């Protein structure tokens, strides 16, 4: 067992599960989506991206690309959240919540691809 692989896999899968947890619930109901979960998802995604830096293989490049997509989508969701609560006069409403959750949903697809790539890579190594 390789400790590096464990940490790597841990962060990639955690990024996906946290993202999934945040995504779960009615799309426009703010009560179903926790801001702490979004924060955790962003942090774990950034860490996963940093871990993927500098891998020269084809799979490594694809993993990095999907992570960058996920981070970008999640940060966009966080910016929308910040705009809705602090800048928008009416505060958080169903429309903002729906767009935040859909952005996070997009990030989740990217994270799912990351996880699938990781699995595919591992299976290929086994032969």
């Amino acid at each position, binding site marked *: 067992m390789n400790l590096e692989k464990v940490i790597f896999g841990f962060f990639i899968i955690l990024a996906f599960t946290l993202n999934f947890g945040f995504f779960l619930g009615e799309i426009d109901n703010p009560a179903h989506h926790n*801001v*702490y979960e979004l*924060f955790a998802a962003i*942090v774990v995604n*950034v*860490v996963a991206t*940093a*871990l993927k*830096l*500098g891998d*020269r293989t084809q799979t490594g490049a694809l993993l990095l690309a999907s992570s960058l997509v996920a981070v970008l989508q999640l940060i966009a969701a*966080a910016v929308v*959240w*910040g705009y809705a*609560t*602090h800048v928008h006069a009416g505060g958080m409403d169903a429309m903002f919540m729906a767009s935040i959750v859909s952005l996070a949903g997009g990030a989740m697809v990217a994270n799912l691809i990351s996880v699938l790539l990781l699995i595919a890579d591992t299976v290929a190594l086994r032969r």
Partner: protein
Amino acid sequence: MPPTINKVLFLFLRRMRPPLLALTAAYSVSVIGLVLIPGVDDQGEPWRMDFFHAFYFVTYMATTIGFGEIPHAFTEAQRMWTVFAVYLSVVAWLYAIGKILALIQDPAFRLAVSQHAFDRTIRKLERPFHIVCGYGDTGALVVRSLLGRNGFAVVIDHNPDRINELVLEDYAVQIPGLCADASVANRLLDAGLLNPHCQGVVALTSDDAVNLRIAIAARLINPDRPVICRAESHDTEKNMASFGTDQIINPFVIFGQRLALALHSPAHHLLHEWLGNLPGSPLPMPIDPPSGRWILCGFGRFGKAVHAGLTQEGVEVTLVETDPEGADCPPGCIEGRGTEADTLRKAGIESASGIVAGTGRDDYNLSIVMTARELNPELFMVGRQNHESNSLLFGAADLPLVMRHDRVIAEAILAHLTSPLLPRFLDLSRAQSTEWANEQVSAITAVVGDRVPAIWTEQLDEASAPALLKHLEHEPVTLGQLLRADHPERQRHACIVLLLRREGGSPDILAPADDTPLQPGDHMLFCGRFASALTISHSLRDPHALRYLLTGEDSPEGWFCRALRAARGQAA
């Protein structure tokens, strides 16, 4: 993506992984702490910082900007956490910045960056160039003269100091230099051996074995490109010749041949010197070595070559050598260094007419020359200069002929790089009479004055002379017309044609006369001022310039003016 970009980028990314992780950790811990710790607002009501404000606060706190406690004054608990977060995040930033600076300073990273820059230069190179391996005295001369003859070079040298010299040299353009071992075939590829603009490889390192390896690699990888090699031992020379190295330059043999030529016919020697010399330098003065008895000090590689040259011309030679047995001297050799007066007297200096100071050390050579001058001021003296740094001393010694082997190599290489016609011309001219050589010398003097002339070639083909080819279909053009020799009132171009090579295997014409008709496919070797080269090649290409050259008439270029002129012509 080319591999080197990958290398630089991935090296950077891989090294940036720990600092980025540290920063992410420091930021997220600080933010989550601020969000979780309860505070109070300005009315004293319980209040919790949200993520937006926490991130805002951490952003300016971590970079030590410090706008203050925003949006409400902090509680004691929040301040405690802030103290912790300040140290955490500032240390994380220092660590990250330190890593980036260390990476930029890292020799491996800098090597990768400079290699990447070199590769990019080579890939973008859009002009013909030569690969010059070895940037010593000779290499520098070759590069300088290549630039002087409108060429370009890429330099490989294993010594980083030499590459730095190359960067600091005041060339008009930046010459790309690679610090690497040229005998590794991959480095030749890096330097653009397979680039379509590569014109050839010049191996000039001071090590014969390295030159040999370069020659082999270049011949195997790109057999179409000529390889020119420096070789100082006969074994290497033979070895290189065995697999078809195009030109092998042995400076000692070349110098021996030159000296023989000077003894044979000073005019021929002068012609050689003028055409082979580095362009732009002052014209060498004519020399007239005497044919009496010569003394030759030092019988090494240089001495042997000079000895061969002198005896070939039937000159009697007295040898002076410290180790006659070891140097394999012919009988009758005087033992000694030649720096002492009694050795020279023993060699019969009073009755000799020439002396060659040809040892491997400059101080000995200078000493020989000075002693000999005192004993017999009438002597014709030839000195061998081994190091470029002693130029001043050899200049002050005022010798009629100095052999600098870096110069000899550079000139020989230049002759081959300039045009294959030039060595051909020199070969053919050797068979001509002294009168003929004198005529050529005065013709060259008439066009160039006191500087070494530029040498260039012109080919009458579709690419470089479309206008002339079109004109030749209707009307013959002579060489004289091209050189503007036919109109006495117009100034003749400041150049002469040394050699004309016809297409289809007819013999080359040496110094063609003005009334020689031009034919498609002709190859001409010019000698003169470089300014005329540009004018002539322009008139070969441009129909209007050609018409002006042939008729002296400035014809209108545009459709309207042509129509106007035609109408006026009809009216008249």
